[in-house]
């Protein structure tokens, strides 16, 4: 996105102005270089990161840390895999120290099969973490009431799923997503998870979502760097389309070329 566009259309999350509406994950790439190239091609300002147990003999954690630090991107640690409020809070505290940020992509998973967020655990964890000074970006379902309650406890950004993590199914429930946009017009909404193709990301942006977060669709493509660029373009296109205002769809045809003055057309 060029400077003029950024100035006219900033994305502001927790008071920080961002130059990109594309948030990219750092998992599943076939090589560290592919990850770095994809991040560069995406133009993203924020990358998501995780934490896991590691043996002292394996210093890949330090190597990974250096790589992501060198990207210059803002880090958004996640609590992936946490299934309880306690696990999420401990993981968040570890992330804050490790990554030196109080920003957090909060995940509390309620079901192993579709990795669906547990709305009750998510809400409780969000409330406690905000009291501890975290800036929480909750990975949530597209349920309006849950989203309203997450705002009530202090979340300033919401990240509803498009569809389950890693599926690539796109926007599973457009009605719910449109409802969120309409009912929460001033809240930054980021579609997180389930996006499989640039057209799906574009659809989310055309719908009025403020940004898109994805990982698998880039990392598992045949050429991640090229796919990252494709997503960046689609997200920018979708945003421009939303700002321009889409025409209303209609059920019947309407000629675009003027009818008056058409040759070879005679009354009777």
């Amino acid at each position, binding site marked *: 996105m060029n400077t003029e566009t950024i100035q006219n259309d900033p994305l502001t999350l927790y008071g920080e102005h961002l130059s990109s509406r594309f948030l990219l994950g750092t998992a*599943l790439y076939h090589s560290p270089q592919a990850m770095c190239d994809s991040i560069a091609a995406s133009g993203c300002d924020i990358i998501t990161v995780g934490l896991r147990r590691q043996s002292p003999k394996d210093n890949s954690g330090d190597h990974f840390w250096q790589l992501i630090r060198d990207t210059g991107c803002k880090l958004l640690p996640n609590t992936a895999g946490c299934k309880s409020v306690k696990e999420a809070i401990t993981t968040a505290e570890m992330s804050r120290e490790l990554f030196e940020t109080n920003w957090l992509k909060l995940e509390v998973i309620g079901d192993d099969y579709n990795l669906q967020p547990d709305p009750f655990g998510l809400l409780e964890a969000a409330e406690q973490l905000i009291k501890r000074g975290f800036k929480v970006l909750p990975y949530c379902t597209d349920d309006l009431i849950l989203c309203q309650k997450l705002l009530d406890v202090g979340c300033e950004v919401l990240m509803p799923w498009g569809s389950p993590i890693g599926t690539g199914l796109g926007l599973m429930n457009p009605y719910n997503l449109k409802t969120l946009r309409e009912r929460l017009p001033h809240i930054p909404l980021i579609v997180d998870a389930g996006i499989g193709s640039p057209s799906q990301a574009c659809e989310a942006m055309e719908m009025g979502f403020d940004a898109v977060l994805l990982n*698998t669709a880039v990392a598992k493509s045949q050429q991640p760097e090229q796919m990252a660029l494709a997503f960046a373009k689609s997200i920018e296109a979708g945003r421009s389309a939303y700002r321009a205002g889409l025409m209303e769809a209609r059920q019947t045809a309407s000629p675009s070329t003027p009818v008056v003055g058409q040759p070879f057309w005679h009354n009777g």
Partner: protein
Amino acid sequence: MLTLSLNGDKMNLQQPDSLSQLLEKQGYQAQKIAVAINGEFVPRSLYEQTSVNDGDQIDVIQAVGGG
């Protein structure tokens, strides 16, 4: 003799150590890590004064890719 769990692996200690001593012996001292004992976060500033006890479950984590 103390028996601990370090990242899910059992280990024995002849005598009680501080958390910082344990991490150093295990080769973590130069690495960027965060630690929890029995599911509770232990800030780096408390490693020296935190003792490890029999039956403790210690998690040492590092940065990885995440979505």
